């Protein structure tokens, strides 16, 4: 029993190692200059993290991501909850969101750059746009599924509409909201990389694509490892928080369900 638990815990780690081994073997088999081995790429990781300038760049990326993600969550959750509870609000915003959804947010970057410049503001705004849609959508779905009886009881006990939204709808929709936030977190990372790739000025995406242009393949693959590790690490950290916040809800899937 203990062994099985341990195996479960270690499974993702084993998968990581397995993938790296596959990479190593493939690289040795192909034996191409532009495709370094896994070991070669991992060796380049400390060089990048040790370099002060790239470290500052990566941290600046993370800062933009945190700000964009934070504001997006703060605005999207109330909006989504309102949409879920009010039919008028829902039909007001739904078509607009449907039109915006298939537009790649990072593709707005060139236009936003024209207006706001290449600085932090444009990149944070793009991240904000990318994160908000899934969070709105999941909050909406979560709020729609709240049991009416609970709201009636709350109304009978004299809670005002705002109080009901905060004390009944928000906790009841929390599992779904957090699913949306988790999707948003990965999207924030993706948008961060692409926005920096388009506005080549600073950040992790800049390092990655500059290395590609200059043919420093070790750096390219090392950056892929770093960005990938950021994604997996952030996701795992978020999962911890989620499990703690919604401990009362039914045990959910340990893998994210929607990845938009």
């Amino acid at each position, binding site marked *: 029993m203990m062994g099985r638990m341990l195996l479960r815990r270690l499974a993702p780690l084993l998968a990581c190692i397995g993938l790296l081994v596959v990479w190593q073997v493939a690289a040795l088999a192909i034996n191409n200059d532009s495709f370094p081995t896994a070991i070669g790429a991992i060796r380049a990781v400390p060089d990048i993290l040790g370099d002060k300038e790239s470290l500052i760049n990566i941290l600046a990326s993370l800062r933009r991501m945190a700000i964009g993600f934070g504001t997006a969550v703060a605005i999207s959750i109330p909006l989504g909850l309102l949409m879920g509870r009010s039919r008028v609000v829902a*039909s007001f915003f739904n078509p607009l969101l449907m039109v915006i959804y298939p537009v790649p947010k990072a593709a707005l970057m060139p236009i936003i750059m024209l207006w706001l410049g290449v600085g932090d503001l444009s990149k944070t705004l793009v991240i904000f746009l990318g994160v908000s849609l899934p969070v709105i959508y999941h909050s909406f779905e979560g709020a729609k599924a709240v049991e009416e009886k609970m709201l009636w009881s709350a109304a009978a006990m004299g809670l005002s509409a705002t109080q009901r939204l905060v004390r009944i709808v928000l906790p009841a929709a929390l599992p779904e909201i957090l699913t949306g936030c988790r999707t948003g977190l990965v999207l924030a990372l993706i948008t961060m990389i692409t926005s920096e790739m*388009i506005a080549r000025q600073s950040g992790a995406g800049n390092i990655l694509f500059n290395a590609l242009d200059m043919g420093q393949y070790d750096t390219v693959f090392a950056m892929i490892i770093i960005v990938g590790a950021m994604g997996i690490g952030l996701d795992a950290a978020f999962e911890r928080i989620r499990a703690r916040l919604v401990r009362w809800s039914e045990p959910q899937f340990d893998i994210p369900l929607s990845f938009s």
Partner: protein
Amino acid sequence: MSRAATSDILIGLIPIVLSIAVWQGIVSFGYAPPTLLPPPTLVFARLAQQLMTDTFQQDILATLFRLFAGFAIAVVLGIGIGLAAAASPTINALVRPIVRVLAPLPKVALYPALLLLLGFGHGSKITLVAADALFPILLSTYYGASTVEQKLVWSALAAGTPRHQTLFKVVLPAAMPSILTGCRIGLVISCIVVFLAEMITSTDGLGHVLVTAARTFQAVDMFVPLITISLLGLILNGALEALRSYLLRGFPEA
């Protein structure tokens, strides 16, 4: 169509009309120079004009080809692996940790690697689209298939269906609503990713049109591909919705 639905559509049109009006207003009252924000009339006229030209149609076709190729691969692999993982504990144990690691990985970061391995042609873009669209489809297939009511499978077995056929005759149809939800998410992602891939490196496609316009600071031409991809997304979404209501015609209100 019922009256409530009609009024819903009308309410929904308000913000779209309003934002276009505000857009026009900003330009008309001179808050933004037309070089930065061209008036909507100009943009839509340009869109109509571009849609008639051969080169733009070629770009749309190139984008659509990559989108569909990648999406199709993702659908086949996603449903296949998802069903297999739900049906067999061994495959499940193997697939689950790999998915757990790969799903939160930002796939765009893999694009440089794909470029180096597969070259600058269709291959790398299609692979990126497939890699990004795969996981939502795989996960929702797995979710749908593993929550199929056991009674349905038992009844089928009792009625004499061979065990290996229950997968296609019972589990797959029962998981269909969930699978289609995954496909819908995957489709939107495909739209987004194909555009991004074309923006990074390409010689044709809608993303390339945007980048070329951005390099020459043609604001009007920057809006055209963006509106086009949004329209494409809406049309594809509508088509998938129609397919959904056809496939799920026997389901109670799915």
